[in-house]
């Protein structure tokens, strides 16, 4: 995004701004400074970004709810970074000062104030009013959201990666980010450090595709794929397409300019299904798309040696929710796309760098999905209705040699070891 000219950044549109609620407030009430025709005098004590103190300038009678939670929201805390840094940094408090210095130089510019979504462009893209200081309830997508979330989410959603379609929600419905990511998601719900989120995938899945596509829950519609795969696969496994991965981001301070800079080793397009490294009640999926994040064990060596001694604590192929959803994708075109013995779309060990194998043990797919056709699956013997209370992942506890009269799981089912039997053997109605 091209930066604005200096005058454009601060030009107030009187006709549009003054009639608004914020236009009724005297400039100095929020920005301090002084009434003077002399710029230097007028700007003495100026607060350029009042919303960096949301409780003082945005709360009160107007936005008290948002001002109370926003200091603990991820856009404000950037806790997602620290959750990863702390995990990979391990129990090494002596490394913290160096990591904090690194963070301040390279990561903290992504800290976002209320104003950087609602009145001006984020400062890391140069800042400047959206519309002459008019406050926007809905942040303008390309000048706010994707100005920061651009190289992966933005490019995928808007279809800017060559030859790869944009997200159907944008392409067909012209939906913007906040259609799904509502205010409460963005303003946060935590009111202190304890209730604040650890990263964007912590806690409840929100937004959730089935909030709108209610029929896609198992049993919600007649689509056999939804019936079978419902909670085993995240929606993106079947409905996203090729997305961006990056390798090895290293940071340093320039010898010549003294400015912080970064360098990534590689950026490439992938679509790989891996095991879910953060499986939980809220995200029960066994498989999810995984994206290589630009983490590297020596990423911060400029600031000190071995600052990430516990690098293998987190996978470098991370749980991902690509923003390029399509109804029809190569992998949902047929059962054989996944159940045909083709490993190309699965994160198998051979696709992982040797030095990252240990970090990715929790996501690497060891056994490919068994060969099965839709016909076979739909004709599988049903589970007796009396088993309703027994449905679990421990079917083999009974269906093995010598247990009562239970039928024995066939030998060729050995490959299904990670599968939930009820995926094919539906409960008798």
């Amino acid at each position, binding site marked *: 995004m091209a930066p604005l000219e200096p*005058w454009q950044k601060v*030009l107030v549109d009187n006709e549009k701004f003054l009639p608004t609620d914020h236009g009724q407030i005297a400039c100095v009430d929020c920005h301090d400074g002084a009434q003077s*025709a002399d*710029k230097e005098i007028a700007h003495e004590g100026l607060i350029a970004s009042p919303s960096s103190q949301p409780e003082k300038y945005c709360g009160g009678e107007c936005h008290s709810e948002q001002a109370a939670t926003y200091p603990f929201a991820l856009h404000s805390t950037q806790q997602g970074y620290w959750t990863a840094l702390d995990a990979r940094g391990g129990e090494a408090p002596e490394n913290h000062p160096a990591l904090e210095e690194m963070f301040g130089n390279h990561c903290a510019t992504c800290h976002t104030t209320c104003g950087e979504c609602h009145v001006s462009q984020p400062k890391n893209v140069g800042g400047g009013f959206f519309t002459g200081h008019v406050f926007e309830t809905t942040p303008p997508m390309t000048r706010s959201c994707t100005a920061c979330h651009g*190289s992966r989410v933005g490019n995928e959603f808007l279809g800017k990666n060559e030859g790869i379609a944009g997200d159907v929600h944008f392409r067909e419905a012209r939906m913007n980010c906040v259609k799904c990511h509502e205010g409460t998601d963005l303003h946060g719900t935590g009111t202190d450090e304890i209730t604040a989120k650890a990263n964007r995938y912590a806690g409840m899945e929100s937004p959730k595709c089935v909030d709108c596509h209610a029929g896609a829950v198992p049993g919600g519609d007649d689509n056999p794929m939804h019936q079978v795969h419902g909670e085993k696969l995240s929606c993106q496994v079947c409905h996203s397409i090729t997305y961006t991965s990056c390798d090895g981001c290293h940071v340093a301070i*320039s010898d010549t300019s003294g400015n912080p800079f*970064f360098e990534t080793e590689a950026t490439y397009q992938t679509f790989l299904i891996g095991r879910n490294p953060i499986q939980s009640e809220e995200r029960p999926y066994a498989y999810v798309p995984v994206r290589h994040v630009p983490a590297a064990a020596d990423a911060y060596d400029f600031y000190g040696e071995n600052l990430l001694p516990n690098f293998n604590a987190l996978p470098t192929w991370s749980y991902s929710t690509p923003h390029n959803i399509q109804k029809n994708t190569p992998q949902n075109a047929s059962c054989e796309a996944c159940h045909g013995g083709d490993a190309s779309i699965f994160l198998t060990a051979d696709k992982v760098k040797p030095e990252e194998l240990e970090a990715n043990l929790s996501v690497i797919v060891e056994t490919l999905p068994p060969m099965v056709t839709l016909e076979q699956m739909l004709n599988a013997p049903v589970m007796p209705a009396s088993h309703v209370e027994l449905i679990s992942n421990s079917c083999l506890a009974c269906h093995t040699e010598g247990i009562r009269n239970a039928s024995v799981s066939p030998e060729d089912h050995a490959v299904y070891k990670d599968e939930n039997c009820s995926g094919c053997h539906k409960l008798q109605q």
Partner: protein
Amino acid sequence: MSKLKISILLIVALFALTACTSKSPAETAVGMDDPDVEAIAVAAASAVPVSNECLNCHTDKQRLIDTAMPVVVAEKESKGVG
């Protein structure tokens, strides 16, 4: 005679009392000789400035161009996708 004196005194007293009544609002606005009145008028003027210097400048494109700090474009040293 005494009735005439009393009547004259009453008329004089009436004039005197009329002269002591407050001035009309219009007269107050004009009369700035009283220091208290002047202070009140100054305070009112600063509460609602006739001219907002912030907006005078920040709505004037040319003035913003003329007074802007020179932009130093830093050489891009980062490489790759951020």
